[in-house]
């Protein structure tokens, strides 16, 4: 008995954890830090495809037909390949058009038709009820079995009850309450249930782990590994046929039909639509999910066959229903905790399905069935006061309870020997009826509302007749001969053999006929009927979903008048006052309009309001609600066509313009780049030209200046023969000095020109640098002594000889020395010369203790005709060409010439010359 309490406690704890995760997920979403915005959670959330059917039923089916449990999983795997195209289109359409349910999708596509939305809802509800009953069955059965631990016996339906009601009913109410708590706490305009998705992803993990646990346990603990199981099973021919490919168990056509059926199911089951399409947060996730989801299916199905074989071997007496092998095996092995874990796993699988499907179905019912009816019969009057948000929520809650109760009733009255799998397939076949109208809706412009209605009705009727009706015929007191020979004895109306088609199992048979009628009616009626203006525009939006900008559709098929106040009041009734105010302000801000100041609403505001409402009650109902507060004028189709035509023309033209503009922009950008390059090159050329001009004009100036003096004084002396001796001597002196200056200048200019042009002659010999430096100091001494400047030399030991032009290096030394003397203070000047060897060069430093060279001057003194020194103190002697020439000479031999100095700290000119081994010129 304590174990029973443990089961209930474990179940409650698990449900509590699930709820906690959902709550946390929603909280994170509110704060904007989504928990679920990644492809792994997305793929896991789609694992809700695997319900108690997968958990318990697969084993059951495998025990009966071997690999026949596989098609249900092959289908989704194949579909996953197409997901990037089909699913992504569905997601895009849903996001752009604010679709809230699959019924909403259909209704919106076919002209926002409330009738279509309602029909889809009804079909969905009726179709899913059997599936829900399947979950109830599984949970109840597993609970009952575990309750009887350590006895492992299959439960019969009229077995243990608690408090008078049987287990299944308790489970029903429990799940209903849970679903209400989960999915109907508040209305959300975006209909993103982040907490729900988080919880579902979690339970996908739980059931996977639990199934793997029991699989591993059975394979490796009860038996000696997979090889052991298959060996032993091979010994029994009855078992051997289960995993060998032979005709008795393998019906290829059945496989094909089932695979096809499950391909449709993975798209159109309400829970799959909810998770894959409506809860998708990022289209890019689809790519990863395309292989993650099939991987999940693969892993969860790995141990199905081993468990089935093991169960058949262990329970060869048939004491346990094959569906319950998963639970029975650990129980019989005495592993309590594993059994409990397995139960939780099954509970997880079942609750996942129930929660999501009931939430999806209840939203469908409230938005696409109840709301339109309430609006039509004026129970809900949007033009008048009332809290209609609360109405919507209540409708949803009631729906959940009703659906669960219906599931329970179905569970009670159906043929209870039917396996779990076949119950599930009935639901699959029901939602398959959505396929023609849905897929036609997103790929075929010709599909019309009437066609869709016709197809759905036809397919649904055939489905109902051939599957659930046949399964529940005994309720109505219809005798079993109904199945064998048809109603009123009409043979070709036999539910399992319509038109005398034999050889197919009931599901495939039903699928064939229902789709046949469905597609036929859809296509036929669509071709015969004309779509309304709204239908056409919606069709265009859906089919061209990838080229439509989200809010940018400029075609407003609406002409009418509405006041801002009316719109606001209506929104408040569904969204509440504060949220309405916030939404309107945000929208107004984004458009730069202040709604409090305007009286009449424009078309864009009306459309926006409709969109907001659609998020809460579905597009069809939103349309009705909006229509009730605006005075609408309906456009004739001609006007609409004209608008569409104009718009499309304008759009095409503007697209052309855009393209041409882009091309032009590209060209002009290239032009700009080329022009910029040209301009830069031109500037460089001009600069060089300027520099050349500058050089020439500077040389001209420098040459003409001494000439001026020479000429002027020559003339003066010539014209004044009686000039006093003193002045005569002075002037002649000037003439001589200026002549020398001129000569020097001319020589240097020519020298520099030759050096720069590389036309100089070099006489390279082996030179002892010390000797050369000594000689240069001797040559400079007279000039230095005259000014009172001392020159000292330091030699760092012996220096190896170098190969240079002796005269040229002498020229450099004299230049540096004369500069040093020139800039040393008279009388106390000290010039120091050092020759040192460093690595593979010889370095000569010439330092003076003069005023130093400022940083700006350091930059220019190596330029031609530039001299350092304060300009206002008069031009220093010299041509300004000495340093450039020295630099040329030094660099010719592979060395470099530079200066280090700071104001008031003297200056040191240094140059390097490579050693003999390096360069021989």
């Amino acid at each position: 008995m304590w174990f029973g309490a443990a089961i209930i406690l474990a179940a409650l704890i698990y449900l509590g954890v699930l709820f906690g995760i959902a709550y946390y997920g929603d909280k994170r979403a509110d704060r904007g830090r989504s928990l679920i915005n990644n492809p792994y959670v997305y793929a896991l959330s789609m694992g809700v495809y695997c319900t108690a059917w997968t958990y318990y039923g697969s084993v059951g089916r495998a025990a009966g037909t071997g690999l026949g449990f596989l098609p249900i999983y092959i289908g989704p795997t194949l579909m996953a390949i197409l997901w990037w195209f089909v699913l992504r289109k569905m997601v895009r359409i849903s996001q752009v058009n604010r679709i809230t349910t699959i019924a909403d999708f259909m209704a919106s596509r076919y002209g926002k038709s409330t009738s279509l939305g309602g029909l889809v809802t009804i079909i969905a509800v009726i179709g899913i009820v059997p599936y829900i009953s399947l979950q109830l069955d599984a949970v109840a059965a597993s609970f009952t079995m575990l309750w009887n631990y350590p006895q492992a016996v299959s439960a019969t339906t009229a077995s243990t009850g608690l408090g008078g009601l049987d287990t299944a009913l308790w489970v029903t109410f429990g799940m209903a309450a849970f679903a209400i708590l989960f999915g109907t706490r508040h209305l959300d305009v975006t209909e993103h249930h982040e907490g729900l998705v988080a919880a579902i992803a979690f339970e996908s993990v739980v059931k996977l782990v639990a199934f793997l646990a029991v699989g591993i346990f059975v394979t490796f603990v009860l038996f000696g590994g997979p090889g052991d199981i298959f060996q032993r099973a091979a010994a029994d021919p009855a078992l051997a046929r289960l995993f060998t490919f032979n005709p008795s168990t393998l019906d290829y056509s059945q496989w094909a039909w089932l695979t096809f059926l499950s391909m449709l199911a993975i798209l159109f089951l309400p829970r799959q639509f909810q998770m894959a399409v409506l809860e998708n947060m990022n289209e890019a996730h689809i790519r990863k999910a395309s292989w993650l989801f099939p991987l999940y299916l693969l892993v969860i199905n790995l141990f199905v066959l081993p468990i089935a074989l093991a169960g058949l071997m262990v329970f060869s007496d048939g004491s346990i229903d094959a569906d319950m092998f998963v639970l029975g095996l650990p129980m019989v092995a005495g592993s309590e905790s594993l059994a409990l874990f397995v139960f939780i796993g099954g509970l997880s699988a079942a609750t996942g399905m129930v929660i999501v499907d009931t939430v999806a179905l209840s939203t469908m019912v409230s938005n696409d069935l109840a709301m339109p009816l309430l609006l039509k019969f004026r129970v809900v009057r949007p033009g008048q006061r009332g809290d209609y948000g609360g109405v919507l929520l209540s409708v949803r809650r009631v729906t959940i309870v009703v659906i669960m109760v219906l599931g329970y009733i179905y569970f009670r009255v159906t043929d209870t020997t039917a396996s779990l799998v076949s119950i599930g397939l009935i639901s699959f076949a029901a939602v398959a009826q959505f396929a023609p109208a849905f897929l036609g809706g997103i790929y075929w412009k010709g599909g019309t509302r009437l066609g869709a209605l016709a197809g759905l009705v036809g397919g649904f009727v055939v489905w109902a007749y051939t599957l659930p009706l046949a399964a529940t015929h005994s309720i109505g007191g219809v005798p079993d001969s109904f199945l064998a020979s048809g109603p009123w004895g009409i043979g070709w109306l036999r539910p399992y053999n319509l038109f005398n088609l034999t050889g197919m199992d009931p599901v495939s048979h039903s699928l064939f006929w229902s789709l046949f009628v469905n597609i036929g009616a859809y296509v036929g009626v669509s071709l015969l009927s004309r779509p309304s203006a709204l239908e056409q525009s919606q069709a265009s939006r859906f089919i061209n979903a990838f080229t439509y900008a989200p809010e940018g559709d400029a075609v407003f098929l609406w002409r009418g008048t509405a006041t801002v106040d009316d719109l606001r009041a209506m929104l408040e009734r569904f969204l509440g006052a504060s949220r309405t105010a916030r939404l309107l302000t945000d929208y107004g801000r984004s458009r730069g309009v202040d709604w409090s100041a305007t009286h009449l609403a424009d078309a864009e505001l009306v459309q926006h309001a409709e969109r907001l409402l659609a998020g809460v009650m579905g597009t069809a109902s939103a349309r009705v609600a909006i229509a009730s507060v605006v005075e609408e004028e309906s456009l004739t189709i001609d006007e609409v066509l004209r608008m569409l035509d104009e718009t499309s023309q304008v759009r095409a033209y503007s697209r052309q313009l855009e393209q041409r503009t882009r091309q032009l922009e590209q060209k002009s950008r290239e032009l700009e780049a080329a022009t910029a390059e040209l301009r830069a090159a031109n500037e460089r050329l001009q600069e060089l030209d300027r520099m050349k001009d500058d050089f020439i004009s500077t040389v001209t100036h420098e040459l003409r200046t001494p000439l001026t003096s020479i000429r002027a004084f020559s003339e003066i002396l010539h014209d004044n023969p009686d000039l006093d001796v003193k002045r005569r001597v002075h002037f002649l002196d000037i003439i001589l000095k200026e002549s020398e200056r001129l000569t020097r200048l001319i020589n240097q200019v020519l020298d520099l020109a030759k050096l720069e042009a590389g036309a100089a002659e070099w006489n390279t010999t082996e030179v002892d640098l010390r000797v050369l430096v000594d000689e240069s100091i001797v040559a400079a001494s007279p000039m230095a002594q005259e000014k009172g400047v001392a020159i000292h030399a330091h030699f760092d030991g012996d220096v190896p000889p170098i190969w240079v032009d002796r005269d040229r290096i002498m020229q450099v030394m004299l230049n540096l020395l004369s500069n040093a003397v020139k800039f040393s203070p008279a009388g106390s000047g000290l010039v120091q010369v050092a020759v040192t060897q460093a690595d593979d060069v010889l370095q000569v430093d010439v330092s003076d203790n003069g005023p130093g060279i400022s940083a700006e001057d350091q930059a220019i003194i190596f330029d031609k005709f530039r001299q350092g020194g304060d300009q206002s103190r008069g031009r220093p002697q010299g041509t300004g060409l000495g340093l450039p020439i020295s630099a040329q000479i030094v660099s010719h031999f592979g060395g470099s010439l530079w200066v280090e100095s700071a104001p008031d700290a003297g200056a040191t000119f240094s140059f390097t010359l490579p050693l003999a081994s390096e360069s021989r010129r």
Partner: protein
Amino acid sequence: MPSKVLIVDDEANIVISLEFLMEQAGYEVAVARTGEEALEQVESFNPDVVLLDVMLPGINGFDILQHIRQRPRSQSTAVIMLTAKGREVEVTKGLALGANAYITKPFSTRELLAEVRRHLGVSEDHETLTN
């Protein structure tokens, strides 16, 4: 009253030659070696003729010319530009800015004296007329 000549040049030897020439011709001479000095001298010495070198350290000759022309007192002072650069564009610029004459170096002493005399003659005549 002897005419006043302001010599503006930074080359020492050229200044010596010009000084000799002007003094020999009987004029009162002042010397400026930089642009700033030149402006000061225009103010204080108030010359009748300015012999202005273009290539000066600091403010260049053209700017000084502009300054002189902008001053109301010296608007009619004769300015003879001297330059070693002889490009036509410079000559045009100088004349456009208001120089009375433009002489390239090396100059002929005779020509220079003639120019000075000519421009002094004008202002001399002007003076005698207004006196």
